[in-house]
Every structure is written in structure tokens, then in C-alpha cells.
């Protein structure tokens, strides 16, 4: 019964996606549709825009408006120490192997506002590896990269982050890493002194370096299988032999061509290692 209206909405969004690609070069054609449609509806609702046609005019007329649309469509919700067991596994199973390299290179792909980046940096520091590690933190969205650089997060999540830190095997006082003020926690900027931030679009950009560890957690869930495969290939091209690939807890390499060249380090936490 509702189908016709829904179909019309979807056709309009598809046209919008094409126009955005030709005007701004951002390619959303490989994004999983259920989420895209939901994000567009949410944006329409929040901004009091009544039709996709109206939205399209605004997005194509005004690049600032497009920025805010981009931010909404690409989910940027993230947290520190999401899945503490993952970070514990990274600490116990991956970092000891990485410590055998004189110089370590890590790619945090889709770093969003930086919560995961700072969690990772804390781990590296506690394991004595931070000074000889370079982290490349990338995201499609320039605005969130700026936020990530600042390392300021709302204190409303402090309790969850603190328990996540200890559950992941944290060795210090969590509060020693940040100053809290005016409802925000500002993390020690020395944690990211070896981090390079720059925009990278997984859907369209290519490999730019070789890494010992690639982290890309809960980003691929927004892509369709075809785009996922393309990104897996990109990660494969970007990993050294015996390099590590860390995905989100519900993401898998299983369907990918590259999977035969990868072994589980920790199945439950979806950490893979490339064969030699």
C-alpha cells in the first residue's frame, strides 16, 4: 500500500546520488541502500525539508549545505574502546608482533571523529610503541578529520569509555590521558604527534602506502558487496606480507576473493593476518 510513495522516494534519491557524483565527485552508488534511504529521511526530517527535490536543489546549489548532508549520510557515530575485547586482543595478539618492526605503520581507515584513533594511540603508548609508530588517519569527511585532530570528546560518555579502557587491559589511570572541562574531555595531544590526517575516499581513491596494520571497523557495513570487494582489494594492496587487518565485530572477509590469503588471528574479534 505504501509501496508507490516509497518507490518514488527511492527513485528521487537515486537521481540525487547521480547528481552528487557529477557535481562533487563523491560516489555513493556502492552504498547499502537501506541505510542511505534512512539517513536521507532523517536528514529531511531534521532540516525540515519536505521533498527530495527540494533537498536536491539545496545540495547542488550550496557546497556548505552539501557538507552537512555528507556528514549526515556518512554515519560518524563512534566511541572509545568499542568492543573492549577487540582492543585487548590487539594488545595481546597483534602489538607484540608489530613490536618486532623497527618502524610501524598503521592505517586507521574511516577514522571519523577520532575516538578509535585515540584508543589505539593509548594502547600503543602503554606497550611502548607509540614513538616508533606512524598512524595514517583518513576519512571521506574533512569536517570529522578536524574534530579528530582536536581530540575533544563529550564527557557524557566518560563512564562507558573508562570501563571500556579497563576492560581492554588498560594499565594506568584512564583520567591521566585527558583533561575534563566544560563537559568535554580533551585528550593529550602528544598521543597523536605521529598521526597524519588526510581525506581519503575508500570508494574511489587508491592505495597510498604500505602498512603493518589496517583498521577499518564498522565502515564496510555501509557498502554493498561489490564496493566491499573493491575496498578489500585496496586493503590487500596496502598491507605488507604478514600484515594485520582488523574489521568490525560483524564484518567478514569470508565472501571476498582475498580471504584465501588471510588467516584468523582472532575470529571473534575479526582480526586477520595476511599470509606471507
Amino acid at each position, binding site marked *: *500500500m505504501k509501496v508507490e510513495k516509497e518507490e518514488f522516494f527511492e527513485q528521487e534519491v537515486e537521481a540525487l546520488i547521480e547528481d552528487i557524483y557529477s557535481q562533487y565527485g563523491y560516489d555513493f552508488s556502492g552504498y547499502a*541502500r*537501506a541505510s542511505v534511504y*534512512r539517513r536521507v529521511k532523517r536528514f529531511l526530517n531534521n532540516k525540515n525539508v519536505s521533498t527530495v527535490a527540494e533537498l536536491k536543489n539545496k545540495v547542488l546549489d550550496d557546497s556548505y549545505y552539501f557538507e552537512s548532508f555528507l556528514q549526515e549520510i556518512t554515519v560518524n557515530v*563512534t566511541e572509545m574502546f568499542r568492543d573492549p575485547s577487540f582492543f585487548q586482543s590487539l594488545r595481546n595478539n597483534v602489538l607484540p608482533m608489530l613490536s618486532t618492526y623497527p618502524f610501524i605503520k598503521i592505517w586507521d581507515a574511516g577514522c571519523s571523529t577520532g575516538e578509535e584513533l585515540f584508543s589505539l594511540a593509548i594502547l600503543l603508548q602503554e606497550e611502548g610503541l607509540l614513538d616508533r609508530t606512524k598512524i595514517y588517519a583518513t576519512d571521506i569527511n574533512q569536517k570529522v578529520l578536524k574534530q579528530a585532530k582536536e581530540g575533544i570528546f563529550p564527557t557524557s560518555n566518560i563512564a562507558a569509555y573508562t570501563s571500556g579502557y579497563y576492560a581492554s587491559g588498560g594499565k594506568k589511570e584512564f583520567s591521566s590521558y585527558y583533561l575534563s572541562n566544560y563537559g568535554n574531555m580533551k585528550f593529550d595531544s602528544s598521543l597523536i604527534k605521529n598521526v597524519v590526517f588526510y581525506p581519503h575516499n575508500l570508494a574511489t581513491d587508491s592505495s597510498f602506502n604500505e602498512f603493518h596494520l589496517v583498521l577499518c571497523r564498522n565502515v564496510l*557495513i555501509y557498502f554493498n558487496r561489490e564496493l566491499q570487494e573493491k575496498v578489500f582489494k585496496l586493503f590487500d594492496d596496502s598491507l605488507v606480507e604478514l600484515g594485520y587487518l582488523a574489521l568490525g565485530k*560483524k564484518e*567478514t572477509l569470508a565472501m571476498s576473493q582475498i580471504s584465501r590469503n588471510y588467516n584468523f588471528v582472532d575470529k571473534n574479534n575479526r582480526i586477520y593476518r595476511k599470509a606471507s
Partner: protein
Amino acid sequence: MEATPELIVIGGSWGGIQASLSILKGLPANYKIPIVLVLHRLRSMEGELQHIYEKKLALKVEEIEEKEEIKACHVYLAPANYHVLIEKDRTFSLDVSELENYSRPSIDVTFTSAVEVFDENMIGILLSGANKDGSSGLQAIRNAGGITIIQDPEEAEVSTMPLSALELVPDCKIMKLERIQEFLNSLA
């Protein structure tokens, strides 16, 4: 005679685990209609929930993996800390976007997404819970012409969830758990 529904979605919060178990344990292993279960739960319950259901149900129980295809004779559990969406090709999508109704997984998110794919050919059931999540999702199912059921608020351990749904969907079916089980068994 109406067509057999192609999907059953069940939501619950406080008291929802027990309530859903008592419905589902009465369904046979060859119960055709796929069932998606969205429960609010503690993150520390990760994984354990699946074992509880596996032990008690004849049906196959799986925690949802992204891109997984919805198959007959399965009960699918929404994973902790992800929203569950359904794609046109009847596969699952996961999403870690904002909490909805203080919840992730949110029942509204899954119900609303399922309607867009299954239209009137689905059943939505809301059980015990101390949260209003699920009400507008149930309304979406109702508006599409699907079957909507709430657990009898008198029987529910916490009645906030079914009562809130009743406000938005006054013509939904009100049933006790035993009756819901009989009803589901009569369909397939």
C-alpha cells in the same frame, strides 16, 4: 484468505527475553516463516543470548551477520550495539548510527525498515518492555496493512512498551503469550 506472511518481527525490552522464549519454544524446527528478534540488552550479554535461545528452541538461531540472507526456519537475533536494517534483496544490513529511543538495536529501526521491503506481508509483535521503542515501527506495519500484535499489558512484566504501542495502534491485536504462540503456529 490472506497470503501467508513472509516475515515475523518481534521486539521487546525489559522482560522481553522470557516473553519471546515462551512464544518461540512452541514453534517446530520446520516453522517456515523467518523470525527477526530485536531485544534491548546489556552489552555484556553479547553472544550469551544466542546460547540461551539455542538451548530452548527447536528452530535454528543465528546472531545476524551483515549481508546475510533471510532464510526460512530461522530465528535471527539483532546483535548488541548495532541497528538492523533489511535490504530489498532480503539481506540484512547493520548500522552503528545514533541510538533511537535510547536504544541500539532499536526496534523502530528494524520494524520500519522491514515494512519497506515486506509491505503488508509481515507481522509485528511487541512484548514486555520499559521503553516506548517499537511503537512507531508497529504503526508503520499497521499502516502498510500488516498484522500487528502486542503482548497483553496485564500479562507483560513491564507494560510500558505494549501500552505505548496501543496508543499509536489502537486496533492492534492484544494477546497473551500462549495465544500469540497458537496464532503463529496456525499460520505456517
